[in-house]
């Protein structure tokens, strides 16, 4: 039985976060009424000419520098010719032989913590096509399609990897890391639903150990990491089954259908277009000088991997915590602001505490509030810091802190101290009161006392729980444990 190896390369279309389009002054905002954001240039009216958007070129340079790629001092816009109603000029302006970024790489962690580095082939600038709307259009006769050219001409950076990924999980992890990077660099809004980040996956299989690549299929236009993973898994399984049953993989373009969880053939290589690429004579060679690259370099934020290292070195965070905190610039900023607002504690302890809260409660609440980012969390860094302050100085227990966090999330106008006072949540340190609860629990649970004396530590924990319950969570758990032990062991 052959062991198969999956080979995946990804092409990702990243919509660049520019105000205007790649070659026209029309705005790029999503969701406008159809065809209201189409300039004569986007409509390809007779006599119009493209003017490159310098902001988009800056984005490409930023990306190139972030992945350590080579910024081409000379790159060429080329025309990719094909007819389709949502492609007004009958060609797409893209880059073919000389892309703006060559090479580079992206490193990321898999879920098991192991690190991977994916080599990039290139990144090139191009314009998006419009949208064909085939159904659901009011006032349109059956069998008629509508064309919306609002998206036509939107700047895209197409990022192409080498065929170096070996599993669907690895490909999805790469896509997530790339998504993290382009949003971190602020060159893409990262909105998957609106199509700001779309992947094409080139998938092939080969017997493990083989050097030669198998015939590949390209799965087009996947805009979710989960779908990407499933599409690659399905496609690899399909190819393996096909080969094992004596068939041959045909080079073709396929589409993933998430409803039926399968890929379907869109067109075979034989029907592939001859795009008749040639340099666009309307656009001179794109020249990028040192000065421009330097200016972009100056304006670059710290890179995720640098931020991650800094977190580990400066704050002693674990790799996993550092990953979480450096997952986005918003997260990092949330972390930094919170730590800064907690001056009293020892820095590494503070950092660990903040990271834990970001990993647990904050993440949980953010996940529950669909689409909310760290920047929009109702519990701001300052609010969280004041909460952690009270936790740290022993005013409240961690159980109470978590309850308060939930309350603050609902009503961020409250103050931590206000809630503590009004609800009487101050942690009970008074040994007399604790001793009273301890005595009550011991006398009410003779069986547990026996078990404890027989050497079962679990029984002690249960009794601590009982005392905490009596105190409504306000007793200091270590003081309770202390008191129980001294009573029982006496």
């Amino acid at each position, binding site marked *: 039985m052959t062991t198969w190896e999956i080979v995946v390369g990804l092409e990702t279309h990243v919509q660049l976060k520019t105000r205007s389009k790649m070659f026209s002054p029309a705005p790029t905002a999503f969701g406008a009424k159809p065809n209201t954001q189409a300039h*004569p240039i986007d409509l390809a009216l*007779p006599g*119009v*000419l493209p003017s*490159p958007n310098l902001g988009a070129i800056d984005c490409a340079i930023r990306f190139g520098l972030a992945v350590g790629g080579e910024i081409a001092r000379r790159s060429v816009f080329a025309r990719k*010719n094909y007819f389709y*109603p949502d492609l007004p000029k009958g060609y797409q302006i893209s880059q073919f032989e000389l892309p703006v970024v060559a090479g580079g790489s992206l490193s990321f962690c898999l879920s098991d913590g192991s690190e991977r580095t994916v080599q990039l082939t290139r990144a090139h600038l191009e314009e998006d096509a419009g949208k064909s709307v085939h159904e659901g259009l009011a006032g349109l006769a059956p069998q008629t399609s509508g064309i919306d050219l609002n998206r036509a001409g939107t700047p895209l950076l197409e990022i192409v990897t080498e065929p170096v990924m070996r599993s669907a999980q690895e490909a999805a992890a790469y896509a997530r890391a790339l998504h993290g990077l382009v949003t971190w660099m602020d060159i893409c809004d990262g909105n998957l639903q609106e199509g700001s980040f779309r992947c094409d996956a080139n998938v092939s299989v080969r017997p493990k150990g083989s050097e030669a690549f198998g015939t590949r299929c390209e799965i087009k236009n996947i805009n979710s990491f989960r779908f990407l993973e499933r599409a690659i898994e399905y496609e690899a399984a399909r190819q393996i089954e096909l080969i094992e049953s004596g068939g041959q993989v045909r080079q073709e373009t396929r589409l993933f259908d998430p409803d039926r969880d399968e890929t379907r053939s869109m067109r075979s290589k034989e029907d592939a277009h*001859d795009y*008749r690429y040639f340099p666009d004579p309307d*656009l001179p060679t794109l020249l990028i000088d040192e000065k421009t690259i330097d200016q972009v370099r100056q304006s670059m934020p710290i890179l995720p991997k640098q931020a991650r290292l800094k977190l580990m070195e400066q704050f002693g965070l674990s790799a996993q915590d550092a990953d979480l905190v450096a997952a986005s610039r918003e997260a990092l900023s949330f972390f930094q602001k919170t730590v800064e607002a907690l001056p009293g504690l020892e820095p590494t302890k503070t950092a660990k505490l903040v990271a834990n809260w970001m990993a647990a409660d904050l993440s949980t609440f953010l996940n529950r509030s669909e689409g909310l980012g760290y920047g929009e969390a109702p519990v701001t860094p300052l609010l969280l810091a004041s909460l952690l302050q009270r936790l740290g100085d022993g005013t409240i227990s961690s159980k109470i802190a978590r309850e308060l966090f939930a309350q603050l999330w609902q009503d961020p106008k409250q103050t931590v101290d206000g809630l503590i006072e009004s609800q009487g949540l101050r942690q009970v340190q008074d040994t007399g009161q604790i001793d009273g609860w301890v005595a009550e629990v011991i006398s009410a649970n003779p069986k547990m006392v026996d078990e404890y004396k027989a050497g079962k530590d679990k029984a002690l924990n249960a009794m601590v729980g009982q005392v905490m319950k009596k105190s409504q969570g306000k007793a200091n758990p270590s003081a309770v444990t202390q008191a129980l032990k001294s009573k029982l062991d006496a």
Partner: protein
Amino acid sequence: MEFRFSPLSELRRALDSGMVSVEELAQDYLAALKNEPFGASLAVAPELTLKQARYCQNLLEKTPPDQRSPLLGLPVIHKDVFVTTGWPTTAGSKILENYQSPFNAQAVDQLESAGMVCLGKANCDEFAMGSTNEHSAYKPARNPWDTRRIPGGSSGGSAVAVAAGLAPAATGTDTGGSIRQPAAMCGITGIKPTYGRVSRWGLVAYASSLDQAGPMARTAQDCAWMLSAMAGFDPKDSTSLNEPSEDFARLLGKPMTDAASTEQPLRGLRLGMPSQYFSNQISPAVAKALEAALQVLRGLGAETLEVDLPRTELSLPAYYVIAPAEASSNLSRFDGVRYGHRSEKATDLESLYCLSRTEAFGPEVRRRILLGSYVLSHGYYDAYYLQAQKVRRLVAMDFDRAFEHCDFIVGPVSPVTAWRLGDSPALEAAKDNPLLAEYLSDVFTLGASLSGLPAMSMPCGFESTAGGHRLPVGLQLIGPRFEEAKMLALADHFQLATNFHEQTPDFSGAQS
């Protein structure tokens, strides 16, 4: 109508002296354009023209004479590849029948800002593809010197309008000779400036890397005035030259070198005669007129010397690869989806494209789209398109080398004078192949186009036909990049010494 054949400079004086008003002048030309028998125009809108004229008259009256733009109040007709908001723009094609542009071409706007009054749109070969104006989808234009003959193309209507006194000036575009060749055949003056001088914003594109707009008028001075208004950097055209604006008339009438004198204003100027241009390919009549013109130039003090442009013949295949390649892509937007002709027989997407384009593109356009698609196809790109680009560079190097020895190149525009409608040029090299003959007749104009150099045509003589007609012969000047002002000064000196440009056709016998 006493002004119909006056150059712009005379019309300027007439307007400034109050001899005629802007409106009267416009009306005279509109009257001439109405029912003219030459097929010069594709669209007029008299109300709009007169409105512009009244506005300019008003401006003229409010502006002291020394502060007036030299073009204020002067009429112009635009080749129908310049998009205009006031007149439909068809590019001579059925696929754009009745097309109305929502914006003006940049050159149209600039001429309007300089005070020119638009008379309408001039006929041309469909999408500027052709050398005869017979490829207009609407009607051929006729040469006013002999209406049975072609006016040349593709800016045929523009040349006819000026030559027949239907407009004192016109705009044209030149991709491989489309300003110079019809100017030569109609006996007027026309200049294709350095590539990038005039914004291409609003020109219906034929071949983007070659297309260049320029003026067509009666004299070099008129062209200088117009070019000054048309040229200039335009951020909307990425291939536009970022050069300061220029007064292209600034050198007119001045001695051209330090060695020059009033009697010999061209003394010290070296004019290169490419041996390839003065070969037996040109007709005896053209050769004779050229020789006489060179005598005039020598008389003005210019030195003539032989130069070598060894790749002249190669410019033809290079052009007929590059221009159709770009055209095949530029014309893809005419798909019947958003504007222009849409076939009524279409049943699906494929047939919508095929039928719309087949029905509405003429044979020459279809031929060039096919040719262009072929040379860009997978497997042929390197052999044709890339090779042609290499040849293009070699052709340009020929000119660079020639300009090390001379200041300007002189030669013919066309190897022959205007031929008959439906006929083809009598060229030995293309016997029995009329299509090839038409292409071959462009061989002397393609070099400057491929090299992006400024080049112009001016009248330098006539051929007398057996039928009793006089057919104009044009002299071509090709200059180094950016040397338009000097080239126009050279042409102006020639025109001060000759009167070929002042001749007008006798078309009393023309049938309408």
